[in-house]
């Protein structure tokens, strides 16, 4: 298994840093961004294979970022994270082109599984 490259976007710094550390421990290369703008900058500088994106963020919201990614980097799958377990938001995200969505608090195993599936879907390994 080659090292996956994932971008984690969430305004909860503690959450993102801890999650990235855990992913790194599991052999996933995880970058972090703390808001929408930063995420887009990261995408520009060093495009990841998969983006894990929180839906509720101040400033540029998750759904807007998602739309930008779909437009500019259609080959990069996006997994949405939602603190609200409202499936409507999730469905909306799916409609806008997200690969899947997960509810917080996450199960790390589930996240890795979804990332794997997302990569499969675009033919990457």
């Amino acid at each position: 298994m080659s090292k996956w490259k994932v971008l984690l976007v969430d305004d909860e710094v503690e959450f993102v840093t801890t999650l990235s550390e855990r992913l790194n421990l599991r052999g996933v290369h995880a970058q972090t961004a703390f808001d929408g703008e930063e995420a887009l900058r990261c995408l520009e500088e060093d495009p990841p294979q998969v983006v894990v994106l929180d839906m509720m963020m101040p400033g540029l919201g998750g759904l807007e970022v998602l739309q930008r990614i779909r437009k500019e980097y259609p080959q990069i799958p996006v997994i949405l994270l939602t603190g609200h377990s409202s499936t409507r938001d999730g469905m909306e995200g799916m409609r806008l082109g997200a690969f899947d969505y997960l509810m917080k608090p996450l199960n790390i195993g589930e996240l890795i599984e979804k990332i794997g599936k997302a990569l499969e879907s675009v033919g990457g390994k």
Partner: protein
Amino acid sequence: MKVQEWFKSFHLLDFPEEGESPVRYRLLRRNMMILMIVITIVPLLFMAIMNYHQYQSTLKDEIVNPLRVLVNKTKHSFELFLAQRLSTVSFIASAYPLEELADENALNRIFRVMRQEFGGFVDLGLIDDKGVQVSYVGPYDLKGKNYEEQSWFHEVRIRGTYISDVFMGYRKFPHIVMAVQRRTDGGSAWILRATIDTEKFNDLIASMQLDPSSDAFLLNKSGVFQTPSKRYGGVLDQFPLVLPPFSSEANVVEEKDPQGREVLIAYTYFLHSPYILAVVKPRGEVLKAWYTLKTELFFLFLFSVVVIFLVVLKLTDVMVRRMRESDEKREAAFREMEHTHKLSSIGRLAAGVAHEINNPLAIINEKAGLMTDLLEYSEDFPEKEKFKALAEVILQSINRCRSITHRLLGFARRMEVQIEVLDLNEVVKETFTFLEKEALYRNLDVRLQLADNLPRIASDRGQLQQVFLNLLNNSFAAVEDGGIITVTTYEKDMDTEAVSIQDNGCGMSEETIKHIFEPFFTTKKGTGTGLGLPITYGIIKKLGGDIEVQSKEGKGTTMTVYLPKKPRNGSGV
């Protein structure tokens, strides 16, 4: 003013807004009934009384008038008869000289002609101014009899003519006497006197053709019978009733006769002779038509009152019941609205809280996860196992919290319609968790017979939870403690999946089944809103599904929900 006060004192126009509702409706019912009955029966009564009097006077006139006419007519016949006889006597007294009348042979001839031409004459005699019968023709030997002492003699001397009352005399049959006085050229007076039997009177009375219950007779002015009566005595007996007051025209009075009967007496006084003609008719007989009418009027009135009563009773009942029903419906709707409102408020609050808690929970989750990860990768150290166990407990607790927040969010979500792909079995299990405690507490045997490999369907999780919750609630309410409830899921056909909820509870009658999907129909008096099944039905229809009821009283009920795998056009989304 008085009526208003009266109304006020009964609070007839008040409708108590508060207070115990049965009392309130009873009051309302009473007030409406009294008002309606008063405003219908009072005019009716008024009219009936007016009609009664109107009819009474009209009919009485109608009945009494012919009687009056008859009396008048008969009186005229009598008067004519008497006048004729008197003028006959008078004519003879004037036409024949005294000498001829004094001669018995001549008098006899005249008398014979008289009897021939005018019936009823019994005898004829001439009396001189001393009162001595000079000549006489007739069945008795009265010649030479002196009448000087008798009152009629004096009367005829004063008045010139005289008609006596009926009397028996020595003749021993009822007759009257007529006398006419004449004067000779010399100035001495003499009197021609004739006796007439009253047989003719009876004929005149018979000619009135009265019905058998009526009585007609002639009286003199002191109330002595001149002709026999049927009921009150024979000739020359005293009339047992008080004589009616003088009236030359036919008049009618009401009296009570000695036999105790109410009678009408039609009578008239004769002008030129001392008689009173009277017809006595029993009042009942006369007013028979009136009595019949009166009875009919009374029964009509009674019938109307009964009909009014029944109609008012029924009408008031229906109206008050309607009012009560609509009040109850309104109240139920209010309660439901309040309930919904409360639920949605709680839902929003729950969602907000859950969301706020989810973020820190996610952080704790990651931190604890990282701790276990780090422990996993680090070398052994004295407390490693203990740390691992501690982190594990933290993670377990987070999971518990997560399930709580998710359930809260699920609850909030039920307010909106949202289609997602879901596993029916999972929804059923999830819903059952809400009722697990109650099932345990009541020792209910809930069997979940969930089909394996049931394809996922596109539907609304929240709404389905609501549906199953309602149906399970009903089943729980139907069974006794320890009852059995079986929930079965299966694939009905290519497009449809079914969930059936079966209980062995009290079941429902045919009649109840007909109404269960109607809003506000409830068998749980007081506690049910009657909205559970209508909402359930509405949701199922909205999701493009269907619901089926099978129930037998005392055996149990099976409710089966059919759901399409994919929402049909126009439904739900």
